[in-house]
């Protein structure tokens, strides 16, 4: 076993052991940030992954960025052009920010986002997409101004990210609050509400003045977003998650 493996993995395992004991987000953010400096990072963020197609904004769970970078990021709607966000929606594996592609000519704003991050001391970074149930994707991302990441350091922070994400959700109770985040479009909610009221697809198509095929499509999309296999289950799930009320 090389000395490096011992060092990085020990740092990671010690930190994961410590996660157990944290009682408040501030405590965890402080300790995580200082542990991550040993890997070359100056901060981290745990958040949802905003999906432009579903009109999601980013919900921050834990903001461990330096110099209020997250406030700047939110105020400028950087999530819309952030290549790391786009990559998180596609990637299943962790990646370095430098591996998130963008075309500087087609998307000058992407270049701006990365440039501003660098000005805040976040020149490089590492992102871990986290797949939750019901198709939700979160992101744990860490940044700093460093040279290169050792492969063993990457595996170590990958593990830290997985455990820190779970601990963050446990601390803020997001496991319960988050499912209420609005995920259905107005049209989808309309159709599910009428379905809950006992209307058939044909009746709803008459009421809303759209084709039955359009109704079927909205039901299908809503079911997909809710992780349901059929219309009835989608209605139950939509009510439970407060996407519609009856």
């Amino acid at each position, binding site marked *: *076993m090389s000395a490096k*493996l011992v060092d990085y*993995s020990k740092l*990671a*395992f010690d930190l*994961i052991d410590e996660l157990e004991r944290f009682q408040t987000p501030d405590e965890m953010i402080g300790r995580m940030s200082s542990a991550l400096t040993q890997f070359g990072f100056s901060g981290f963020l745990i958040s949802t992954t905003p999906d432009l197609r579903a009109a999601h904004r980013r919900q921050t769970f834990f903001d461990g960025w330096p110099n209020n970078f997250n406030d700047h990021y939110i105020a400028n709607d950087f999530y819309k052009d952030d290549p790391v966000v786009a990559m998180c929606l596609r990637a*299943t*594996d*962790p990646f370095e920010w430098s591996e998130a592609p963008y075309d500087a000519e087609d998307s000058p704003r992407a270049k701006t986002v990365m440039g501003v991050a660098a000005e805040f001391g976040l020149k490089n970074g590492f992102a871990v997409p*986290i*797949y*939750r*149930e*019901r*198709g939700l994707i*979160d992101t744990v991302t860490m940044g700093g101004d460093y040279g290169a990441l050792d492969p*063993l350091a990457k*595996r*170590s922070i*990958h*593990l830290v990210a*997985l*455990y820190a*994400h*779970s601990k963050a*959700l*446990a601390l803020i109770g997001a*496991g319960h609050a988050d499912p209420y985040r609005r995920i259905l479009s107005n049209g989808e909610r309309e159709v599910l509400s009428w379905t809950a009221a006992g209307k058939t697809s044909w009746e709803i198509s008459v009421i809303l003045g759209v084709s039955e095929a359009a109704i079927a499509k909205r039901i299908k999309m809503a079911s*997909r977003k809710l*992780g*349901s*296999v059929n219309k009835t289950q989608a209605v139950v799930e939509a009510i439970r998650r407060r996407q519609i009320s009856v």
Partner: protein
Amino acid sequence: MIHIVTAENRKLYEKELLEHHRIRYDIYVRENKWKNLKVEDGRESDQFDNEDAVYILAIEDGRVVGGSRFMPTIKPHLLSEVFPSLADVKGVPRSPDIFEWTRLFAIADKRDRNGHSGRVTGQVLCGGLEFLLGEEATGFTIVTEVYWLARTHSWGWKLSPLGLPALIDGEWLVASYIPVDVETLQATRRRYGIAESVIVRNGITRPAVRHVA
């Protein structure tokens, strides 16, 4: 219901076990494209499908719809023989009180689109935990894709890592140890809306591990 199949009662389940190996072929060879598996007559098996293996089978109307396999960690098992590097920080836990949990599946039409959140999965999980509690096991080890961690954490399972994640055949895998107690079972039952025992023991008189030890 979830049937427990040990070396002792295996002849009562010959047909179901064959069916289970055929389903495993569909899932692990065709769907997940796992490598280095033994395939015979459209059925998948590996070197751990031996006398020491304990199967749990979800059977509905005579049809196998889900299942799993448990290995005693005092015998050769997946983590000890195939993926020991995944436990290179904490070592491979080996004890009569610890099993290894492998091959957790539900057939395709019993899964929702996220893969593993269905009713049958819930029964297999609760059945597995009940089996472990019945064996007086203190916990189990498991090798999974990393995306399982967020899920298992959300069920209230108290995972500890055994080593760093590693990229193996294109998948990030990680080995974990998970302690089992009544609270683990209750949390999992709540998560899946299961109120009572789901297991059936036909022709089992002995614990699975004591007599192989």
